[in-house]
């Protein structure tokens, strides 16, 4: 992969700039904006603000629409009013009888927790190996780590299913997080970068004091890398929480109570669809869709800078 080795213009971008895009040019002036006359500048600013606010409405409208649809009775879900004509909060009570939302949420939560927890530990361990030790073929192996990022998931989908099938684990949760025991390419890359940024003297000093490699990893490396470990945890939690295809493959044949939230909502969309014999009770789908989204929004509210930093790092690996 020649793309992986090239240095990129984005590579040196300060993380702080990503976290707070307003840091530079706090006078409200972008770098490209220095026309000489006063009048065009005002017009330009008005256009920019109109665009910014217009795009905000575009991005927020579907979410606001969702919130309001979740409070509408059956016949009004399609009416597109942002303030429901008939306010129907009982949707939120009835949905629990209609759909086993609680067990879906619990299933998804436990799976996401296991998936994220395991991938954090295994990826950090592997990253530590790549960051601090010299061993034969290290660069070749790390190149392979990077190369697996390019591999389309479709190629390994069927054989992985057969592996889990032969282990008798299809229908259990294990295939939804099991592969995370072995680290994941992008996270290994991310965590290795972070380890390489830690001062090496810390580890030299610990060596002199007779610390073992394991305690160097668990007592020094891990505690110092909380920020990047949080990024990995949040990314994987989100990926697992949103994952539809794996749940379809491994859990679809089982009981409805055993579904994850994405699989459950897919099931609910069919259940209430008039073309599939349902009554068109889409308000329940909307309540469920809102409830699956809320944990992600809460996560984002508390961990925004980690998400943004993690995504920007993806760009920097170039």
């Amino acid at each position, binding site marked *: 992969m020649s793309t992986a080795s090239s240095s990129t213009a984005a590579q040196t*971008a300060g993380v702080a700039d990503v976290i707070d895009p307003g840091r530079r040019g706090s006078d409200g002036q972008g770098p490209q904006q220095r026309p000489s006359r006063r009048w065009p500048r005002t017009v330009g600013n008005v256009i920019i603000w109109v665009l910014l606010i217009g795009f905000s409405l575009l991005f927020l409208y579907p979410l606001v629409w969702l919130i309001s649809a979740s409070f509408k009775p059956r016949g009004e879900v399609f009416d597109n009013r942002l303030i429901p004509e008939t306010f129907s909060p009982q949707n939120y009570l009835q949905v629990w009888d209609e759909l086993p939302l609680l067990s879906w949420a619990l299933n998804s939560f436990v799976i996401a927790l296991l998936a994220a927890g395991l991938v954090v530990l295994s990826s950090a361990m592997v990253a530590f190996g790549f960051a601090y030790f010299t061993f034969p073929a290290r660069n070749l192996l790390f190149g392979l780590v990077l190369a697996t990022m390019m591999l389309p998931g*479709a190629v390994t989908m069927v054989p992985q299913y057969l592996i889990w099938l032969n282990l008798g684990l299809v229908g259990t949760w294990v295939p939804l997080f099991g592969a995370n025991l072995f680290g994941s390419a992008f996270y290994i890359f991310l965590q290795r970068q972070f380890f390489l940024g830690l001062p090496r003297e810390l580890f030299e000093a610990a060596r002199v004091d007779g610390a073992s490699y394991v305690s160097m990893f668990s007592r020094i490396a891990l505690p110092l890398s909380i920020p990047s470990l949080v990024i990995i945890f949040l990314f994987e939690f989100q990926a697992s929480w949103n994952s539809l295809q794996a749940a379809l493959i491994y859990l679809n044949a089982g009981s409805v109570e055993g579904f994850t939230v994405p699989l459950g909502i897919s099931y609910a969309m069919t259940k209430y669809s008039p073309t599939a014999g349902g009554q068109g009770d889409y308000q329940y789908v909307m309540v469920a869709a809102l409830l*699956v989204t809320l944990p992600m929004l809460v996560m984002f509210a508390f961990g925004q800078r980690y998400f943004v930093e993690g995504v920007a790092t993806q760009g920097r690996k170039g």
Partner: protein
Amino acid sequence: MVRLNASRREAIAGLLFISPWIVGFCVFTLGAMVYSLVISFSHYNLASNRIRPAGFSNYANLIEDPKVVTSLQNTLFYALMAVPLEIAFALVLAMLLNRLGRSAGLFRTMYYLPKMTPAVATAAIFLLLLNGNTGAINGFLGFFGISGPQWLIDPAWVKPSIVLMTLWGVSGTMVIFLAALKNVPRELYEVAALDGAGPWRRFRNVTLPMISSAIFFNVIVLTIAALQVFDQAYLLFWRDQSNASPEASLFYGVYLYIQAFREFDFGFASAMAWLLFVIIMAISIGQVRVGNRFVYYEGGR
């Protein structure tokens, strides 16, 4: 106990630390790929868990199955439409945010929310928003006197529907562009302005070359993602097994899933997977070739 010298011990410790990845790679990546290749040349009987050689028949069937060709065309058409629009839209958004001071954080948060919305929720929302008769999107178009299409029914509008949903969640790409834009030295713009370059020339001759590696990265990543599109197409069109959906909505990833996990024709599905792999590799290599001519790397290559 055998005494090992320091460098041997270090090498062994390092290999032990990376051993989880080695095991995972051998089983779930390399092993799986080899297994997949073998299956693609076999008939796999799931009931008896038996495998028998099939020669090239799965690959021959690929060429004969018109749905493979249709789904491939759909997917390539979708990628050709989605990727340039995503790049352009994300770049516009990032450049707008880049001009802001303190308030950029607030707008970035709002723009990022769709990215946090799970695909199932997005699909559920857009299923109703895109409804041709009552959906809000046609309502909005009607406001300007445009009578909107039957997005999810008319074969010509199925792919634009999915593109719209993809564009709604474009903020990940935007964040990568924003990081790249922050990294363009201000002096370059000042010098360009002194030389009398207008906004367009500054964009064309300063911004674009300086963020070309981010554009290149995003094009490659988005193309790979577009060629594997599954969630939205499955949820909107192929959720139930009635197969009543227009063939225009049959994407390669969806057809692969159907062949593997509804028909349980693992041999055929594996052959499909390898065809996709070859196509993705060919496109990526092509993009790298073209990219190397245009991408500016700071400090040379």
